């Protein structure tokens, strides 16, 4: 252990000859149970393996990073982020380009890394329902979600545009593989918004956070919701009457990036390489039902087979889902968000 | 302003207790129609409580209160139709002077034109003609007092209550207002009940004074008999200065230090009694005078007080008494000095003997 640490330290020193004391890496994430899982499964073990000191901070989102970069006062190295936010932040130039010669993504599931960020976990925006209301005959598609005659009950839907338009189009009869095509075409966004307006009278709550939609299901406040799969597993584990399907779910991932001008850029790159290894990824699934981005994590045998089948990135599940198209979001999110907010306030 | 009718007030057995303390203890009092009656007493005596019972703000435990022939003890304040001047005037700060005075008239549905006329009349009556548009906070203390009075009389109540209305004014203004209030009363003729703790004010203004202490009426009388023939030691002490010497009943009357006292009228009291000595009724005699009751005393101190000079002296039995003399230049030239032994004279008419207690 000591030898390994010394070696890592020596390596670090060789990489950054000017910063002899800079063996402390600062990682920032969203806090809460999510960051607790990251810390236990990824950050702390990786830091120990590299023999470096680690400082963890929390932030509210990329807007915070933007301020720091603009002010030239970047103190963070590694930044945890949603894939969409990272893509836009990368395009804006407030993230470092990642060096995939250092970070090995050869065994990653396709599409789970990008120029400025490397995937850390895979999650799904799924259709969840109250099993007390619908028993085992729950809704199985977004068309069912929209069908208030066949499935009477209160809905909850996201109060932001991300992941909200795709289900509407699928409910409107667009096949999953055509969703982004339709959305990119003129009138596509309007078509989705119009479909959501149809459902609006039945939406009791427009949720704003994962914690909120989990609580809504736990309390039985609504009967059906679109939301993040990991949260519902936690609710079900606590005895909540909730089930969900990966059918027509939206496959998305959280990722890690390096802040533009990070004080320890090269060390951060090593750190990202470390946490992208399959053993870390497998460990992470023990804390939350978000899947590994590295396919090899399933081959290690440390993830229970039955459990693995419940993870979003399991091949059986991934096949039934629509991967989120980040490119579309980079180009259209601002415009779509304006239309969505307009719909909400109408 | 038309001379309004006035009503007599009959108070019977009015009692008000606060916990174990009786603020009013079976009070009986008759206020004659058109009379200026003052309730006089120390603070906490119950005089203000009695006034508040008259106004309807304090609900007594039991008793009867008649305005004229009418029982009003259970009538709420706004239906009693009595005028009242509050100690702090209670002029409405959000209204100007005219609106304050018009307030009771408007409540009584007086026609608009009459309101303006009567407000101006009332203002003139209190010598504030033309002050209608002033804000209340632009007025001096004396002016506020007059406005409060105007507001209390503008609706021609047959009974007027005043709760120490002059206590906030300085001495000169107060004395001026005492005369003015009394004159106004004489002009309007409404039955007036006036509360004060200032005995001089009570003596100056009242037709009669009711002295109250401990929730009970001690004496009701016109100023002069009240001062000169107080019913008991409390009244005597509360009104004017006085010293008391124990006297014993003897064959020929009452005696002090072995000498029988000459009195103008035989006292009602019997047994152990007190001789009341008022400083201004005693005189230092140049030579003994057998027509007077005489006391020998040793002068301790001489205090010059401007309008008079107070000689403090000690009787042989150790009693300390005061003698007030005029402060004319002639008198000052011959006034006694500390250490002198003097003979004091008291006329039989001024010799008052009270029952002890």
């Amino acid at each position, binding site marked *: 252990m000591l030898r390994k640490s010394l070696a890592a330290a020596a390596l670090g020193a060789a990489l950054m000859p000017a910063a002899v004391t800079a063996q402390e890496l600062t990682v920032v994430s969203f806090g809460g149970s999510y960051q607790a899982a990251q810390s236990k499964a990824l950050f702390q073990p990786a830091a120990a393996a590299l023999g470096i000191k680690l400082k963890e901070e929390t932030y509210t989102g990329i807007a915070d990073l933007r301020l720091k970069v603009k002010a030239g006062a970047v103190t963070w190295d590694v930044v945890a982020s949603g894939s969409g936010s990272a893509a836009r932040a990368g395009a804006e130039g407030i993230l470092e380009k990642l060096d995939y010669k250092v970070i090995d993504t050869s065994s990653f599931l396709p599409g789970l890394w990008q120029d400025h960020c490397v995937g850390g976990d895979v999650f799904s925006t799924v259709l969840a329902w109250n099993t007390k209301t619908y028993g085992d005959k729950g809704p199985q598609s977004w068309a069912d979600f929209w069908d208030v005659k066949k499935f009477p009950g209160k809905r909850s839907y996201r109060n932001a545009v991300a992941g909200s338009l795709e289900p509407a189009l699928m409910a409107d009869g667009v096949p999953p593989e055509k969703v982004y095509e339709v959305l990119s075409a003129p009138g596509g966004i309007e078509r989705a918004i119009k479909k959501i307006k149809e459902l609006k009278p039945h939406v009791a709550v427009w949720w704003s956070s994962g914690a909120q939609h989990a609580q809504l299901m736990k309390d039985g406040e609504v009967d059906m919701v679109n939301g993040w799969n990991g949260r519902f597993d936690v609710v079900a584990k606590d005895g909540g009457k909730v089930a969900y399907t990966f059918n027509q779910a939206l496959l998305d991932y959280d990722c890690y990036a390096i802040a533009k001008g990070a004080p320890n850029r090269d060390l951060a790159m090593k750190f990202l390489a470390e946490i992208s290894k399959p053993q870390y990824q497998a460990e992470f699934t023990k804390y939350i039902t978000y899947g590994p981005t590295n396919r090899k994590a399933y081959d290690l045998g440390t993830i229970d087979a039955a459990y693995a089948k419940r993870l979003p990135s399991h091949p059986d599940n991934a096949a039934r889902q629509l991967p989120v198209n980040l490119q579309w979001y980079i180009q259209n999110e601002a415009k779509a968000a304006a239309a969505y907010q307009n719909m909400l306030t109408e | 302003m038309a001379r309004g009718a006035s009503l007599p007030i009959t108070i019977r057995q009015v009692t008000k207790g606060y916990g174990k303390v009786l603020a009013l203890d079976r009070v009986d009092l008759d206020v004659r129609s058109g009379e200026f009656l003052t309730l006089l007493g120390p603070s906490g005596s119950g005089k203000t409580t009695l006034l508040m019972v008259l106004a309807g703000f304090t609900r007594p435990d039991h008793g009867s209160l008649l305005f004229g022939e009418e029982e009003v003890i259970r009538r709420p304040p706004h239906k009693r139709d009595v005028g009242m001047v509050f100690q702090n005037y*209670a002029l409405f700060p959000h209204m100007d002077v005219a609106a304050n005075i018009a307030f009771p008239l408007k409540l009584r549905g007086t026609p608009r034109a009459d309101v303006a006329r009567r407000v101006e009349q009332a203002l003139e009556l209190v010598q504030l003609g033309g002050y209608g548009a002033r804000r209340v906070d632009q007025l001096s203390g004396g002016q506020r007092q007059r406005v409060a009075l105007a507001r209390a009389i503008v609706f021609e109540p047959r009974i007027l209550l005043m709760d120490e209305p002059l206590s906030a004014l300085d001495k000169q203004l107060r004395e001026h207002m005492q005369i003015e209030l009394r004159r106004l009363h004489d002009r309007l003729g409404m039955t007036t009940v006036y509360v004060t703790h200032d005995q001089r004010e009570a003596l100056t203004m009242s037709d009669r004074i009711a002295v109250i202490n401990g929730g009970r009426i001690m004496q009701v009388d016109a100023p002069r008999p009240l001062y000169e023939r107080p019913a008991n030691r409390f009244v005597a002490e509360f009104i004017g200065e006085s010293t008391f010497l124990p006297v014993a009943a003897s064959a020929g009357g009452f005696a002090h230090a072995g000498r029988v006292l000459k009195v103008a009228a035989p006292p009602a009291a019997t047994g152990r009694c007190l001789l009341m000595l008022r400083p201004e009724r005693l005189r230092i005699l140049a030579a003994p005078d057998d027509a007077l009751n005489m006391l020998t005393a040793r002068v301790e101190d001489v205090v010059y007080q401007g309008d008079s000079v107070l000689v403090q002296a000690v009787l042989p039995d150790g009693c300390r008494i005061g003698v007030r003399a005029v402060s004319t230049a002639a008198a000052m030239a011959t006034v006694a000095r500390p250490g002198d032994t003097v003979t004091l004279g008291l006329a039989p008419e001024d010799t008052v003997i009270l029952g002890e207690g």
Partner: protein
Amino acid sequence: MPAERANADGLRRDALRERLALFGLGSPALLLVLVVMVLPVGWLFSLSFLSDEGALSLEHYRRMLEQPSYARIFVTTFQVSALTTGICIALGYPLAYVLSQLPRRAANLCMIGVLLPFWTSLLVRTYAWLVLLQRQGVINGWGIELGLWSEPLPLVHNLAGTLIGMVHIMLPFLILPLYGTMRAIDRDYVKAAANLGAGPVRAFWQVFFPLSLPGLFGGALIVFILCLGFYVTPAVLGGGRVIMVSNRIATDIELFFNWGAASALGVVLLVLTLGLLYAAARLVRLDGVLGGHGT
């Protein structure tokens, strides 16, 4: 000659020194106001006029004009604030009145009750309302159990829930200044009104009520302005249907990564609030509201 003006210079210096000492006492507060108020507001103001690239631009304001949702959010914000203020007045005025008529000791005790909510965090209280009001919450549970109603009433995740939560939080802010003003109203005024012939109702409306107005305006203004900036309560109890400016600011920061857009919203809200304050000040004498109009 010098004797006539003996010590004049020294005395003047003493007076000056006293004034400086007074200013010295006030300077920490002035500095604080400068640092925590003026600077951030100035920074906010300047950010709102910068584009994403840092150039001078009105794009954030243009966006607010172009997208109808912004105008609706401002309308909602002012509506919710006005409704909250109105309900606070309807509930708080009688309560403050009763308190002001109680003996001081009893009133102080009741006041502790009024202020009790201040001792728990706003977030806790807001979530407590969620627990009480939701579909399977305490109130609906009891109501249905007792047969008062059969279907769960929509008490939360809507305007009603938001108003309940906001009124609960805001009520003390109305009652405190109002109670102070009412307490200071000399009881003799009402007695005088009664003595002059006004029954209880007229004495109240013609004398007590006008005299309590400075406190009412002060309290209402505090409540209204605090409501304008509310975030947590509409976010938790509004179900995403009551979107106020603060909620939109949070969404915009997430969406645009950008403080400029949010700053512009903040600036507009500030300007509208100041405008309102100015209008209110012209309507009522502001010194009466802010300075405690003496009697």
